[in-house]
């Protein structure tokens, strides 16, 4: 821990940050007295040997000038495990080609087809500068970089906010741009081509634009609420290069052995409405959020999130959490195709585009260890459930689980301090 108290190192970093951001004023370095440091590590694990994730994150925040803040967040994540490839289970063993095209794996009868060659690591960095224009107005600039083995994402955002009504109302408006480049090993598969053919093309890209307006209102000395409207447009490659759709015999309901790479539209427009409220009771705090989401792929969703913070003492709290999420399916979602139908222009069996609900229950404990040292830990359980026996199942499919539940555990430990 001694490195955190090494003053010469801290001063060097302070001066370096200030010099980078304030080319005209080395004297500004002296304004940066402290650096707020938030750290956390997330462990996420799905049952049945599906995805596991470890994600450490650190965020440094410093005041450059009065009310002017710079923060830097660095995230690393390591993913292992097995991910559904989009094919359905059946009463016979099924063999699939690995995403690279160089190998194969076989799934036993009755098991959900999972691709266990799936692993990835990611590094993401976000820099944020909050700069006041005057006492009531401020600008927020963000820049993002995220790199994983087959994916590069670059993003930038700008948000303007202004206080009104004796600072009881805040209006904000923002715009963002994200550029994604997707370069799967062996290339991106051509939509609707067969897995056996392994027809691939070079890397793909996607551009996303976000716009948002929001209002925040102080309702009383103990209540604050916020309403945001967001619109997002993305153009380019939207397929998941690892997802296939399986073809079944229209009478027997058994796989024909043909698997097609999925095909999604090359544009998507999303609209979100987000409402959040925090209310302080005598000691405790209620934090409630609701989001309505709709997009032009036919997906509508509702998210409800409730946290209740019990104040146990001046230094401790316990916070139960419950989250409910429900979405409708994309217009082109199909659990599988039948061999007597024309292949649709767009089709995906990615379970995340199906109709399902998610329930999350959790509890968090937090403690202040004295002078600007805080720790917390949480444990949560998440379950996703969909329609296991859809009405359009045929033959043997009636005996299979066409939307297996997903269970996951979420663990997080956090430590914050001021350096």
């Amino acid at each position, binding site marked *: 821990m001694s490195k955190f108290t090494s003053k010469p190192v801290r001063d060097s970093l302070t001066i370096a940050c200030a010099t980078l951001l304030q080319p005209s004023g080395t004297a500004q370095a002296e304004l940066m007295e402290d650096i707020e440091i938030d750290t956390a590590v997330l462990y996420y694990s799905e049952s049945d040997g599906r995805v596991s994730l470890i994600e450490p994150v650190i965020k440094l925040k410093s005041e450059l000038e009065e009310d002017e803040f710079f923060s830097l*967040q660095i995230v690393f994540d390591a993913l292992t495990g097995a991910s559904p490839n989009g094919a359905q289970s059946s009463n016979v063993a099924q063999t699939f080609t690995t995403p690279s095209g160089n190998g194969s794996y076989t799934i036993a009868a009755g098991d959900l087809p999972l691709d266990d060659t799936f692993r990835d690591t*990611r590094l993401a960095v976000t820099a944020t500068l909050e700069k006041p224009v005057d006492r009531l107005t401020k600008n927020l600039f963000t820049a*993002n970089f995220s790199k994983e083995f087959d994916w590069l994402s670059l993003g930038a955002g700008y948000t303007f906010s202004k206080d009104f009504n004796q600072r009881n109302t805040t209006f904000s408006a923002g715009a963002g741009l994200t550029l994604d480049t997707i370069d799967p090993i062996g290339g991106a598969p051509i939509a609707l081509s067969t897995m056996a053919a392994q027809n691939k093309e070079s890397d793909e890209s996607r551009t996303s634009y976000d*716009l948002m307006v929001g209002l925040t*209102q102080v309702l009383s000395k*103990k209540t604050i609420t916020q*309403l945001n409207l967001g619109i997002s447009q993305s153009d380019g490659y939207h397929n998941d290069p690892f997802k296939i759709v399986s073809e079944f015999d229209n009478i027997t309901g058994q796989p024909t052995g043909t698997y097609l790479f999925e095909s999604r539209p090359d544009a998507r427009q999303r609209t979100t409405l987000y409402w959040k409220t*925090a209310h*302080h009771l005598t000691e405790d705090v209620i934090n409630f959020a609701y989001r309505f989401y709709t997009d032009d792929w036919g997906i509508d969703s509702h998210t409800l999130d409730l946290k209740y913070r019990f104040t146990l003492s001046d230094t401790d709290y316990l916070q139960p959490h419950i989250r409910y999420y429900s979405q409708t399916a994309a217009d082109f979602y199909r659990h599988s195709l039948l061999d007597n139908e024309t292949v649709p222009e767009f089709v995906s069996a990615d379970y995340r585009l199906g109709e399902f609900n998610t329930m999350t229950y959790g509890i968090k404990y937090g403690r202040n260890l004295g002078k600007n040292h805080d720790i917390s830990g949480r444990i949560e359980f998440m379950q996703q459930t969909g329609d296991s026996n859809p009405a359009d199942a045929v033959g043997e499919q009636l005996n299979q689980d066409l939307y297996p539940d997903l269970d996951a555990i979420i663990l*997080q430990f956090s430590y914050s301090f001021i350096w």
Partner: protein
Amino acid sequence: MSKIIQVVFLLLFLFSLSACLSENVKPWERGTLAKQSMQLVPDELENFLDEHIYFSKEASTGGRSVGGGGCGCN
């Protein structure tokens, strides 16, 4: 789209109503509102990690801010 417009108008109406009914809270009356636990996002890292999980497992995303980084998360 008409559905979301209806919801927007309903919420804006409720929001305006709540704004009209709200107290004019003076700067010196903001002790409670200034607490960390009363921030709309009291724990930024927890919020960030949750958004990453649900972005990877659900079709919906966004609502809180703009310009978030993308990823090919599975």
